[in-house]
């Protein structure tokens, strides 16, 4: 803590003048960068539309209410599809992510030179691309439908589940593993008796958590043609049927709240 001697005695300050100057420069750089970014971003913005937005919002709001309750009948099948996309996608994703996680964990990887970087790259690549983008690609490859949605959800889940699971594997207690190893257990026995009991709670917790997120994501996958509620949303938006849009949003919101409740209950029971 720097002290300056003044006529009235020493004065303490939190930072040295140099540190203060550096901090000031840092903040200045952040502000300047933000202003510059703002100008680049809004270069082509039509401000008349922005000024118009409140009346637009009021207009859409007036048209969106009341929601068309009778439309709910047509939503049960898409809702079932959405839940299936999320559930089957999560299962597929977890099934692929588990071996990837064992390859990525420092203490179980078969080779730190090749398998570990490859597994880590799979995890990063899957994590950085949103499921909607995967769905966009898969719809153009496999054609529209549930299958594209399921695979998109699975591909996105690999990274998430893989990352959390390999961290859980690295945190396992090595002494228990060593004890099992000392009895002459094979590799498969080591996994089922040594690792699995230690990571099982984390495994189920992560899976249910990802399932909860996947329910949210699968609700909008239909926007690019991958089936489920999003397909109805897209159809209603295209014909500007705002009361139907409101109804769909209510159903999505209800599903999300329900899945969050389920996942909170299950995780509470496990952990």
């Amino acid at each position, binding site marked *: 803590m720097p002290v300056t001697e003044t006529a009235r005695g020493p004065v303490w300050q939190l930072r040295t003048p140099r540190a203060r100057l550096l901090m000031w420069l840092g903040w200045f750089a*952040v502000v300047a*960068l*933000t202003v510059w*970014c*703002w100008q*680049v*971003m*809004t270069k*082509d*913005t*039509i401000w008349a*539309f*922005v000024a118009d*937005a409140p009346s*637009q*919002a009021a207009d*859409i709001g007036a048209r969106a209410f009341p929601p068309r309750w009778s439309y709910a009948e047509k939503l049960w099948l898409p809702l*079932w*599809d959405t839940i*299936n996309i999320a*559930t*089957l996608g999560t299962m597929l994703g977890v099934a692929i992510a588990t071996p990837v996680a064992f390859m990525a964990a420092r203490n179980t990887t078969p080779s730190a030179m090749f398998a570990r970087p490859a597994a880590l790259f799979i995890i*990063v*690549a899957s*994590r*950085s*691309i*949103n499921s*909607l*983008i995967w769905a*966009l*690609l898969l719809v*153009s*490859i*496999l*054609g529209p*439908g*549930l*299958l594209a949605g*399921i695979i998109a959800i699975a591909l996105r889940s690999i990274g998430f589940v893989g990352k959390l699971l390999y961290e859980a594997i690295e945190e396992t207690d090595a002494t228990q593993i060593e004890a099992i190893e000392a009895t002459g257990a094979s590799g498969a026995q080591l996994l*089922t*008796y040594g690792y*699995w*009991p230690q990571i*099982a*709670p984390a495994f*189920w917790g992560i899976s249910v958590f990802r399932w909860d997120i996947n329910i*949210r*994501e699968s*609700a*909008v996958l239909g*926007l*690019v043609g991958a089936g489920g509620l999003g397909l109805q949303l897209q159809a209603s*938006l295209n014909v500007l049927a705002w009361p139907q849009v409101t109804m769909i*949003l209510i159903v*999505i*919101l209800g599903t*999300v*709240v329900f899945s969050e409740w389920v996942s909170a209950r299950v995780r509470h029971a*496990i952990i």
Partner: protein
Amino acid sequence: MSVTTYPRTWRRPPTMIRDARLRYALYAGILVYLVLAVGSVEVNWARVWEGLDRGWRFVLGFLQPDFTSRWRDISQGLVESLTMTMTATVAGVIISVPIGIGAARNLAPRPVYYLCRGIIALSRSLQEIIIAILLVAMFGFGPFAGFLTLTFATIGFLSKLLAEDIEDIDEAQAEAIRATGASWWQLVNYAVQPQVMPRLIGLVLYRFDINFRESAVIGIVGAGGIGATLNTAIDRYEYDSAGAVLLIIIAIVMAAEYSSSHIRKWVQ
């Protein structure tokens, strides 16, 4: 002299559900669900077979990305995405700090607490993409709608985590500051802020990363950014350009993650 015989075999007890009947009921339920669910997935195998060729071309495009022929579109999308991310993160932080303080039970009075928690719940309950659709309808196409979407999503995320951090602070330090007769502002400034600042910086960097990833998505519904470029490339079956865009996204996300972990270490 009696000899105790120990069992020669041992089975590992089940890890999760001990009650056998419940366990088998659960297995049966899962099986029934799987049969029903898989049965309801209609797959047009002829279409899939046709598409495999395209899938292979995408894999090739990913391995030999074409950065040059669409570079103008890619770079414009990238600039939009990055500027959108930067401004939305800054605006989101500026708005979410007061809301976060208001949503902390140990700092805010009851009515303010419920109001701020309500704002957070509203912001978190809707998907970014749905908000983007609504905002594009209101504000027109382009990165401005994207900026608003990301800002809105940032508010829910940052305020919630900031509020939880503030609720978790060491009460002894706040008590000490309060004992000196500090006002509420001084309490926030001298007791709360130094404790939550390192975590807050970490969260902001993490959110920057998420915002960039989301900015690649909301372009699909017209909110500007690299997502629009990607969407066009895929729609025109230009998989080599699409591969280039995806590789750029992965590289930037990796760079952001790597540098943010360094900055976090340096701050803490």
